[in-house]
């Protein structure tokens, strides 16, 4: 379980900040529409296209997955621990569940938790980051130091403690994962706001009589969100890994609910005696999903860096 997006993007921005200084302000401020972003992702490399395809597949599975499974995902079939065959193309696990059906149904849990958690952390991180940067001085400093200290905690262990303590419900998992990601957005948005607040268009808004909060919400925040969106795709993959990781060690979603992490755990002991299929297929699906989102995140980030 590693977190690549957070530190990466912040340092990358630092590296690229020198290059951005010479650019025209209006070019920087021009808001690219969703459609523009989408088209430029489509124009990207083959890798980006594959990534986008994966993302679309898994989002569709999150919506329709549970309806298209060939077998009931939580009912045992007559075959137990059987390798892939014609009737069970991914085989069956020790409980007799059809693995293919469960792999298809799992995105409903994993992808949904990750999407909701990511959106929640984006919103919370942006608002706190905005506050921390607009109200300078002691309060802002305090928020940043607190966020520093939180990052020194073994966050995954804290996640285990809180999720287990609150009874492993989906809501708790979502909130915990969202809180884990807040410091990244906080840092990202704050850095962006600090550079934006000195710009001419903020000054112009102030000159026309706009007040602090209104400037912050209407002028600065929309412009500061772009790195946040680029980060969201990366956070998303990370959130799936945490969700599955928690379930893998028994501290998250509990079986028999179809979920990639607990499915991989179900095959853990079989691996040493050669029963590979129980763990391989759910992990493969998860690996593809996470990879897809990482690639798309990278593409969005490239657009963002090119633009600034």
């Amino acid at each position, binding site marked *: 379980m590693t977190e690549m997006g957070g*530190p990466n993007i912040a340092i990358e921005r630092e*590296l690229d900040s020198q290059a951005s200084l010479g650019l025209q302000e209006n070019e920087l401020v021009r808001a690219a529409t969703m459609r523009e972003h989408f088209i430029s992702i489509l124009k990207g490399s083959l890798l980006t296209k594959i990534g986008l395809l994966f993302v679309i597949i898994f989002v569709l599975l999150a919506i329709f997955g549970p309806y298209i499974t060939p077998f009931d995902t939580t009912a045992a079939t007559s075959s137990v621990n059987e390798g892939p065959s014609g009737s069970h193309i991914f085989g069956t696990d020790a409980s007799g569940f059809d693995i293919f059906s469960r792999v298809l149904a799992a995105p409903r849990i994993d992808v949904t938790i990750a999407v909701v958690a990511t959106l929640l952390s984006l919103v919370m991180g942006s608002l706190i980051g905005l506050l921390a940067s607009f109200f300078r001085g002691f309060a802002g400093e305090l928020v940043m130091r607190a966020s520093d200290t939180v990052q020194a905690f073994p966050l995954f*262990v804290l996640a285990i*403690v809180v999720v287990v303590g609150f009874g492993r419900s989906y809501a708790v998992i979502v909130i915990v994962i969202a809180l884990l990601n807040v410091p990244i957005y906080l840092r990202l948005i704050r850095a962006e706001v600090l550079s934006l607040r000195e710009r001419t268009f903020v000054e112009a808004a102030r000159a026309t009589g706009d007040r602090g909060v209104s400037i912050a919400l209407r002028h600065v925040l929309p412009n500061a969100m772009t790195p946040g969106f680029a980060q969201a795709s990366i956070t998303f993959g990370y959130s799936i890994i945490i969700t599955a*990781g928690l379930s*893998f060690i028994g501290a998250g979603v509990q079986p028999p609910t179809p979920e990639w992490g607990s499915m991989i755990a179900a095959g853990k002991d079989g691996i*040493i005696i050669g029963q*590979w299929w129980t763990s391989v297929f759910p992990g493969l699906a998860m690996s593809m999903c996470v990879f897809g989102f990482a690639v798309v995140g990278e593409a969005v980030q490239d657009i963002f860096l090119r633009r600034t």
Partner: protein
Amino acid sequence: MNAATPPTTATLPAAPVERSPGAKRALKILGFLFVTDLGRFILKRLAFIIPQLLVVVIGTFFLLRWLPVDPTSRVVGFVATDEARAQARATLGIDVSQGTQLWRYLKGLILHFDFGTSWNTQDHVWNEIVQRFPVTIQLTVLAFILSLLIAIPVGRAAAAKPGKLPDKITLGYSLFAGAQPDFWWGLMFVYVFFFLLKWFPAPLGQLSPEISSPDVHTNFTLIDALVAGDWNAFGDNIWHYGLPVITLAFVLTGPIIKMTRQSVLSVVNSDYILYAKAAGYEAKTIRWYMLRNSLSPVITLSGILFGFMLGGAVLIETVFSLDGLGVYALARTLATDFPAIQGAVVVMTTFSLLIYLMMDIVYAVLDPRVRYGGTR
């Protein structure tokens, strides 16, 4: 000051002060800390650590008590008389107010370095941690050494010819590996390298059953084997750490390669390198500048990654049945053993903070701007 009083000390001839070598060394260190920029920077960072640690201890303490769990039910069960429950609360030391509990805990921790007694095993938490943390440290540190040894040369090689095929392959790999579930890859490596190829041992602990473990000095099996001169155990231990370390390195090299490549590129194309070349600096000097400046972001990233790795180690420890601090924290969480969880979290966080401190110092040595009031 009374101007009429004759200055007494100034009129005396300055007597040569005899100082012991120890005092000289201490003065030298103090002089370094208080006079040089780097020294002041280190002092400032050290001053931050103490309040941070306090926040960590108090934060964890209240986080645990805020959870809607009843620790006594582990002792007396869910159906118990009120007396039995009160008895259990007294035994666990939670019959007093939370403020008193915290005060007792802090007093024990600060005065006697006492992390309390486990509610589960009645052992001293510190003794339990000392046995397990070395496993986690050995795992993560070996993984980091391997990752840096691979990632930095590969990242620099990729940056040498940007846009060419090797660069593209490297970028693709780092993008892929950087966002992968390490616990699943661990299982895949077990299947291929243990079950199919038999290159590595079964994922069952630190040593083969037939190898007797060396006498315990440090709890780092590798170091203990070295101290005992037991090369058999040393080799066996390395062999057992092989797959978990490779698994972690597989994931870790991704972001480090990417960062190295990017940072080398930005340094190579920077104005100051152009200036240094134009000014006719020696190639050796320029290479040193390039290396120094390109490593700084890599060091920062490594520090942050290390903290994450430490927290996430429980997954790899679970896959390879290593009895580390992560697995300990998980087991004690499931058992509602507050002192043990608290101890594990505090020790891990302290270690992370010390790693950050170390990285910051290395960073400050490499990059003079950091020393002059710059923030990270």
